[in-house]
């Protein structure tokens, strides 16, 4: 495990742990998702750059396109939550609680 691979792998796992233990805001969970996607972009780009295969360079661009879709959907959910509940606090999302 080279230093560069260790750093983006630990970045991915840190983002995943931050998404798991999100505390008050929905937006901070969405930002942890963006951190995961950033580490995945760096990983795919380094795959193309370190193995010197040019055809793999399209993968990070397509990842960016799909992650833009996902960020847009997540932010629309955030806007809907704020319209309904006033804030984006996760403790307000308790309709399914018994």
């Amino acid at each position, binding site marked *: 495990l080279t230093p560069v691979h260790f*750093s983006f792998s630990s970045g991915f796992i840190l983002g995943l*742990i931050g998404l798991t*233990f999100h505390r008050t*805001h929905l937006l901070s969970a969405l930002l942890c998702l963006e951190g995961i996607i950033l580490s995945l972009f760096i990983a795919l780009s380094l795959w193309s750059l370190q193995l010197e295969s040019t055809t793999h*360079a*399209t993968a990070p661009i397509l990842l960016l396109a799909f992650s833009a*879709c996902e960020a847009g959907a997540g932010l629309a959910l955030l806007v809907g939550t704020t319209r309904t509940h006033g804030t984006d606090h996760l403790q307000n999302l308790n309709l399914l609680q018994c």
Partner: protein
Amino acid sequence: MFYFTFLVLVGLVLGLVGVASNPAPYFAALGLVVAAAVGCGILVGHGGSFLSLILFLIYLGGMLVVFAYSAALAAEPYPETWGDWSVLFYVVVYVVGVLIVGTLVSNDWYSCSWVVVDEFKDLSLLRGDFSGVAFMYSLGGFMLMVSGWVLLLTLFVVLELTRGLSRGALRAV
């Protein structure tokens, strides 16, 4: 070169620690900006200057700006920065965790695992990552169409989610 790579990798991990420790979203967006900027540094150090520019423009300049504007939805009078005890606890736990795992895997690291061979070892007019992305228009045309279709669908998803009132996906209960 070793020092630049070391700084940039430490910056990436610390930036993502700052995001994962869940401070107020203002500060988490700042940590993500720092992490994306040094991520561009990693790609530049490996010779991928076009992919680094794409990351800067599209990711930082497009998506993160939208997240920064959306941080106004999470406004609170006393935002938790990285100095507050609840966030600082998570920061310390994550940094210690990364250091412990780092000492476990760093036995095989030697002086040359930090530097990269430059890509100009044979004479070439085209950059590798730049002409690789151009494949998306020739061989990868199908994926280009699929991505465009998915982006159009996402537009309609977002319009449907934020319609609200009486017939949208989220209603005021």
